[in-house]
């Protein structure tokens, strides 16, 4: 077996896959990148936190998500940057005056020609406009068409379809209604909850994975505590203490 030829700045691909698990972008244009996605680079690359970039005005018009802003950087300069994510499969997608919603944990990088907004669905981000973005998935991405129901852990994203609803299995719903309802909230260990897609468009799926903790979830919960009174806060305190005790056993 011949060894693969070593890659240098001239033989590294331009905005293309190095292999199924690594992708190389050219800094001839600027890229938004998730922190930690970069694994190597050639040239004079600068990675600036969104809060500290010299282009704050430009960034503010493109990156419309305070929840995720601190997890992302702008890459600029000249050279080539290789990105990867835990050995997962990596693919690039081209949007043309379109929109696509993707799980925040799966999005690694996108061209600054695209615009990012927070999806109504927690944990997901929506890209608008024209340009390239790079996403990871556990195994190759599977494309499917609605009408369809997808396990939340297997859902990578969707394009052009209306936003999904939660669907609960009828049998599960029946037993839920028959029990002390509150005690079962937050339990989703099986097949009872799915994301329900209707209409026209494309759904992106992957093999399910153990979800890595999305730091934005904590910030989202924090930001919503402001609307609670003393009773609500006490209730949250109580539930948190219970979950903590359970997880320490």
């Amino acid at each position: 077996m011949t060894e693969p030829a070593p890659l240098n700045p001239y033989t590294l691909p331009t905005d293309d896959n190095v292999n199924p698990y690594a992708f190389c972008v050219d800094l001839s244009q600027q890229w938004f990148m998730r922190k930690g996605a970069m694994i190597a680079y050639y040239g004079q690359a600068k990675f600036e936190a969104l809060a500290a970039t010299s282009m704050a005005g430009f960034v503010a018009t493109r990156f419309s998500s305070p929840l995720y802003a601190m997890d992302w950087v702008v890459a600029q300069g000249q050279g080539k940057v290789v990105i990867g994510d835990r050995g997962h499969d990596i693919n690039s997608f081209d949007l043309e005056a379109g929109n696509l919603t993707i799980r925040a944990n799966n999005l690694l990088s996108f061209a600054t020609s695209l615009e990012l907004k927070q999806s109504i669905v927690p944990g997901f981000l929506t890209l608008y406009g024209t340009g390239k973005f790079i996403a990871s998935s556990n195994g190759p991405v599977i494309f499917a068409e609605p009408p369809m129901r997808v396990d939340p852990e297997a859902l990578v994203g969707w394009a052009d379809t209306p936003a999904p609803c939660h669907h609960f299995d009828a049998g599960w719903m029946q037993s839920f209604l028959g029990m002390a309802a509150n005690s079962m909230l937050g339990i989703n260990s099986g097949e009872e909850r799915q994301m329900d897609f209707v209409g026209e468009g494309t759904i992106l799926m992957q093999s399910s994975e153990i979800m890595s903790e999305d730091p934005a979830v904590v910030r989202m919960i924090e930001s919503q505590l402001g609307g609670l009174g003393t009773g609500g806060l006490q209730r949250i305190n109580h539930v948190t203490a219970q979950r903590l005790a359970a997880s320490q056993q």
Partner: protein
Amino acid sequence: MPGFEMVNSKVVKVRLGSPVIARRGAMLGYTGDVRFVPHGVPGGAGAGGLGGLAGGLARRMAGEHEATMEATGQGEVWYGFRGSHVTIVDIAPGQVMLVEADRLLCHDVTLQASTAFIGQGGMRAAVSGMMSGQGLFTTQLSGQGSAVLLSHGETFSLPIDQSRNVAVDPQAYVAALGQVKVEVSAKVGWREAVGKGSGEAIQLRCTGSGTVFVQASEEKL
């Protein structure tokens, strides 16, 4: 008879005709009118056969149990589990598949599941079975239909017959199909007892005729 179909190396798809039994949490998505019912529990639709209450209880006692769901109805269902690789295995009448419960993604309802004892050979083998983390029991599938295995990396198959048997590292072993006897074989001496062994003292010896499925990794699921 539903047929499993590879979507990619980590996902299978099945068009439901007769029901499919799958590990809980393995369903990735579905189209059509499909219902998911816990399998092998009282009140569930699939409490028949050997997978019924008594069988489920026995398997739970043996530590050889994963909660399963039965998919019934009309439509297509996608299955996968945490990015593990999948292997589809067709089981013919007369063949038996031995597989650890946590390595079984899904199978046709036409296959009967029961628990088999592999820790033969007296107390010594019993002790080594525990040391290998393999357990002394394994899930046994028989009948006609297909089953889907989970592995870390792709599996490869080692054919065996009377003239050649094979010994497998317990962590690399995934399943065995045919008329295969799987035994824990160990040369446990004082070195293992004090933790200075070669690390290869405990093996699974597969004899008989059939196929042994092995993964190129020692990672447990």
